[in-house]
């Protein structure tokens, strides 16, 4: 789980959150740019199947999308685009909204596509939808590791906790990484991680133990990202923070998180 990337095996990281609007796609895209800057071959896949705003964040509106690949109108190669920030992106296209109901066929196709992508990249980030829909759970189930993006807001924390609980019980995850976005003071990310771990230990661990599983669920803080006016500016310009303002505090924090992820 913990050693670095190698050229023959892709590492698949699902980026998710309970609540929407916590900066999940922002984190995915900029983390991808930071990993690319470290020399990794990175692909971000819009695993929300068209409801994510990865296209908006990256300012890419491609003619060929995952939708066309799934319907046999294009090859995978045609749908993989270079994104600003030095990584690749596979966007779903709005035509995929109809797939928000995950049929067994779409499920298999998605798994198949990810299998095909694995050997070509050092790392694949699955930008999932918010909430815990069947699409999100399936996307997460395809990943080696999960990253939950959370903000210090109580609703975001509650939903992140619910997500962690689902991942632990339904998918037997024992290691969940956290990025705490929009912190207003240094150390706030650590506090939130500790708080979530406390509730997990008290309420989720006994349940897992009762089911005969005594491996503890560990939350690992991958990073905290400070509230930073540069973020708003970059998002407003539809530019990647790491490309336009790599020295901004939020960008520095993302670079540090990428370094921790790469090990």
């Amino acid at each position, binding site marked *: 789980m913990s050693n670095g990337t190698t050229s023959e095996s892709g590492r698949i990281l699902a980026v998710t959150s309970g609540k929407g609007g916590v900066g999940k796609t922002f984190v995915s895209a900029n983390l991808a740019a930071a990993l690319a800057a470290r020399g990794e071959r990175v692909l971000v896949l819009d695993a929300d199947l068209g409801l994510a705003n990865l296209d908006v964040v990256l300012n890419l509106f491609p003619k060929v999308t995952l939708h066309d690949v799934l319907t046999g109108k294009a090859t995978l190669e045609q749908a993989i685009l270079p994104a600003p920030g030095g990584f690749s992106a596979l966007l779903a296209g709005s035509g995929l909204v109809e797939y928000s109901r995950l049929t067994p066929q779409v499920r298999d196709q998605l798994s198949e596509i990810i299998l095909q992508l694995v050997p070509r990249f050092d790392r694949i980030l699955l930008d999932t*939808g918010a909430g815990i829909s069947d699409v999100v759970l399936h996307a997460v189930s395809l990943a080696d590791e999960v990253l939950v993006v959370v903000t210090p807001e109580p609703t975001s924390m509650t939903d992140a906790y619910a997500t962690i*609980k689902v991942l632990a019980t339904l998918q037997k995850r024992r290691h969940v990484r956290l990025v705490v976005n929009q912190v207003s003071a240094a150390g706030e990310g650590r506090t939130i991680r500790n708080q979530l771990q406390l509730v997990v230990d008290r309420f989720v661990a006994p349940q897992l133990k009762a089911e005969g599983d005594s491996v503890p669920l560990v939350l690992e803080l991958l990073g905290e990202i400070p509230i930073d006016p540069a973020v708003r500016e970059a998002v407003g310009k539809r530019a990647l923070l790491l490309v336009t303002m790599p020295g901004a505090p939020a960008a520095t924090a993302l670079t540090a998180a990428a370094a921790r992820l790469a090990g």
Partner: protein
Amino acid sequence: MPPPTDSTKSDSQALNLDAALQLLEQSGHPLPRLRDTGKAAWLQAVIDGLCELSSRDPLTGLANRRHFELMLAGEVDRVARAGEPALVLMIDIDHFKKVNDAHGHPAGDEVLKHVAHTLSDCIRPMDTVARFGGEEFAMILPNCPPSFAHAVAERIRIRIQSMTIPIAAGETVRVTVSLGGAFAPQWVRSSPLLWVERADQQLYRAKAEGRDRACLEQPAVSFVSPEEKGLLFGTSQFQDLLS
């Protein structure tokens, strides 16, 4: 439709309410007398009567599918805001066709009416029970925690199972029901359609497993209890952080 202004004519003629009044009369819907209420209140009563009529199933008197879908959409919104657990139950009479084939359609209608009556008897005032179509019924149970849901579904199943339905003089039948239930999606991308579909999948499962049983979707482990929230936000350290 604009409200009638000053008119000496009968409103029913000015607005051509004949068809509406005929419908209300035929369905036995009482209307106040125009001269007792005044025009506006009387027209309101006519409109209310029509709304009522268009939201009910004529045979069983339950809410019809149209009304059910309206209520369900409202419930989806409420769940998204309040995050309360809510349950949709789909209930189907087992082997209903056999009743129709063996005893005729009037007997089938009696069975539908009795089942409908028993279903209405099993629920709380805030719940909605509807005839979804044919021999299929649907229920919305707001604020129904998973721990409670199995008890409710079982209670309904047993009540129907133990019922003797008179279909003709000296003739009775017994029926069973299969039930499928799904909890509300708590976050985004919930839709009434998907919710009903998930409940329907459980209903198919109940049918496939031999009927006369209730199958509920695995309760949402995503539900966060007040105790968990208490601990999540309860410590002084975090209180300081938030303030």
